């Protein structure tokens, strides 16, 4: 089995690059993997597990991709890291791994900011969400109306990433259930992988000293945008009478650093908070090893599972998370939850609890480590992925027939006048797939058959014959 793997690679500053490193060692036991990248540089240690090939969108070597059994595309919300990958996926069908469940940030960033093609963005919004979607998008594009997070909530645009997919892998059960309802492509859920340290026996978390004297070290890390709730944490800390019992270290790039610095200054936290910026991985790991409590808040969430959370657990570090999306599904003994509507109140309560019962939090970190071992082992992930690859291979010929169906219905619609081509395509887009069952009868596009539009169109004898002919494949 040969796999083409399209993902950001280290040192790209995204956890998806680290994810690739984590899964690669396990995956190579099942398949020969070629890493495809448009980055100028990558971590040379990757070459131990896989061949790394550079690509340029304008000069793709399709034959080389076709010689593989499946191409696997990693899609997340950063257009910088995933824009080219999505573009390749549009031309060469493959399996899509969704690292975010809502992709509006990605597509808006790609169309509006990178390509400066607002018209195309609006057209996609209209295609998927009709006139209302277009209208809201137009307002947003002119910096009016909804905020980007609200746009993502209302118009996730996830199906746009799956248009050409032969299969879809997601990292949260919520995403799995939602997408299963709207796409008939082979789909699987696999918990995000993260290897526990190799030099440790199973079930044995890294030893953490019982928290001794104050101050305790709090840590926030990763790409710090608004939804990481750093402002709420700072306010909670500032208002906490016991605040001198803590120190806060922030690692990673901050989307609006000036504003954060001003807030730290304004709240009088200068002596308690330190912004380290982006640091090497080893330094971050050392900081996680020395920290006592991680703060890993997200609100709103784009529906993603968090590689950062797994990294926290790999250090058996207790953590606070927002009670939303994937984080809300985590076992109560592995994290402490913060309700979005009571952020400051809950953060303060947990910090006080930490001061009074530090050993309870120590156990929380150990439980998180055990969960990591049980559910997030890269080997388990690699097996799930390979099972999905096998199903996606079977789907490849259906995918080609799907395009044929689009074309044929558009053609028939053009001359019958009974069903408008665009309206037909919107139905197709919403349903997003033909359904091919095991028996010939089941193959007759049941979702289309049930739609009023289809019933109208089926008055055409030609279309009736077309559907029968397609069912023969």
């Amino acid at each position: 089995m040969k796999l083409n793997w399209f993902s950001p690679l280290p040192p790209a500053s995204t956890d998806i690059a680290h994810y690739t490193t984590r899964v690669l060692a396990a995956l190579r036991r099942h398949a020969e993997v070629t890493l495809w990248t448009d980055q100028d540089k990558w971590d040379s240690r990757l070459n131990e597990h896989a061949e790394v090939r550079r690509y340029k969108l304008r000069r793709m070597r399709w034959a080389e991709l076709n010689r593989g059994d499946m191409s696997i595309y990693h899609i997340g919300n950063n257009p910088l890291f995933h824009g080219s990958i999505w573009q390749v996926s549009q031309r060469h069908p493959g399996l899509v791994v969704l690292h975010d469940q809502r992709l509006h940030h990605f597509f808006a960033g790609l169309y509006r900011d990178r390509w400066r093609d607002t018209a195309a963005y609006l057209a996609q919004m209209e295609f998927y969400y009709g006139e209302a979607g277009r209208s809201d998008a137009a307002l947003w594009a002119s910096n009016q109306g909804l905020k980007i997070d609200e746009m993502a909530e209302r118009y996730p645009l996830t199906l746009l990433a799956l248009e050409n997919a032969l299969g879809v892998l997601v990292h949260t059960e919520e995403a799995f259930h939602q997408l299963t309802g709207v796409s008939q492509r082979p789909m699987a859920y696999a918990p995000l992988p993260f290897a526990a340290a190799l030099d440790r026996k199973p079930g044995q978390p890294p030893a953490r000293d019982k928290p001794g004297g104050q101050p305790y070290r709090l840590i926030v890390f990763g790409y710090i945008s608004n939804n990481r709730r750093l402002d709420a944490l700072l306010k909670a800390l500032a208002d906490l009478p016991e605040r001198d019992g803590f120190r806060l270290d922030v690692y990673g790039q901050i989307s609006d650093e000036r504003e954060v610095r001003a807030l730290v200054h304004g709240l009088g936290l200068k002596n308690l908070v330190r912004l380290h910026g982006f640091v090497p991985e080893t330094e971050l790991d050392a900081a996680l090893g020395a920290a006592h409590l991680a703060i890993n808040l997200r609100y709103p969430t784009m529906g993603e599972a968090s590689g950062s959370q797994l990294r926290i657990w790999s250090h058996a570090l207790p953590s606070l998370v927002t009670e939303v999306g994937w984080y809300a599904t985590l076992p109560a003994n592995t994290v402490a939850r913060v309700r979005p509507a009571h952020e400051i109140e809950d953060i303060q309560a947990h910090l006080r609890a930490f001061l009074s019962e530090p050993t309870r939090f120590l156990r929380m970190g150990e439980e998180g480590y055990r969960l990591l071992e049980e559910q997030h082992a890269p080997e388990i992930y690699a097996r799930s992925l390979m099972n999905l690859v096998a199903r996606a291979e079977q789907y490849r010929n259906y995918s080609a027939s799907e395009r044929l169906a689009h074309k044929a219905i558009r053609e028939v619609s053009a001359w019958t006048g009974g069903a408008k081509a665009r309206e037909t395509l919107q139905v197709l887009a919403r349903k997003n797939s033909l359904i091919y069952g095991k028996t010939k009868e089941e193959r007759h596009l049941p979702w289309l058959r049930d739609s009023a539009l289809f019933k109208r169109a089926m008055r055409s004898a030609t279309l009736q014959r077309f559907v029968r002919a397609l069912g023969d494949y």
Partner: protein
Amino acid sequence: MRILIATAQVPFIRGGAEAHAEGLRDALRAEGHEAEIIWIPFKWYPPDKILDHMLACRLLDVTEAAGLRVDLLIGLKFPAYLIPHPNKVLWILHQYRTAYELWDHALSDLIHWPNGAEIRDAIRQADRQILPEAKSIFANSGNVARRLKDFCGIEAVPLYHPPPHASTFYCAAEAREYLFFPSRLNRLKRQSLVLEALARTRAAVRVSFAGAPAEPDYAEELQALARKLKVHERVEWLGEVTEEEKRRLYAHALGVIYTPLDEDYGYVTLEAMLSSKALITCADSGGPLEFVRDEETGLVSEPTLEALAAAMDKLWAHPRQAKAWGERGKALYERLDITWPHVVRRLLS
């Protein structure tokens, strides 16, 4: 019986497949049947067009014509052999080869398209699903039958047929000093392999190529190659020749050389046998290997320049041996009962 023959044709291009369909039509008519050919125009690029043609074939209704029942449909070529009919017999010339044995070959185009694998799988799936609709399946040759079995798990019976005007081939009393290579100028036929081998022969072997180029500029490309290899004075480019001229060229040749890559069947082999000529072919040439017995009716060479050059030298140096091998080839042809009445009997049985 009222019989339709379904085949595909690339407009303005004519080759063995067209002669095959016409030969079958004439043979059926000679046996007293009403027979017509349905020519499906075929365009294979961009690859999505292939699926369009497949669907178009599936939508055709040839069960009746002007109120009269069509008793039998004989499918020959992809995608025409997908046309449905309740009484269908397939006699498959070949499948869509770049979706199968030529997928990852230097001459393949499909693999270079971004959605090539998707189209390949759709073609394969359609073949697997639809070919078994037929009441019986014959293949043009053992080679085609083997591919059907290997790729689709479908059993087919090889059924040989004679080349057009089979009875008119003859052998002249005296052979002249040239090897004859009659075929369209086509990368799959590998005229270039012969040119490069020619540059390595010890004797001044001469080769006469007859046939029109299958793609624009290919004739010029081959001629330039001959000049580059400095064999152009030992090569004759005859272009497209008449049937009569072709038979004359066979008749006077010292031997015939034919080196296609994995040919389905190949009239050239049979025409050489009918002309009592020894034939040089390659071990990867496919169809010809079903007829050429190495050192009995010709020479089977490895597809390397050195081996092919040695084979040409050998035939060139031993004209009496070449004559004897040619006569054995003719005798073998007669024993195989490669006749249209035999074909019609099998297809209608």
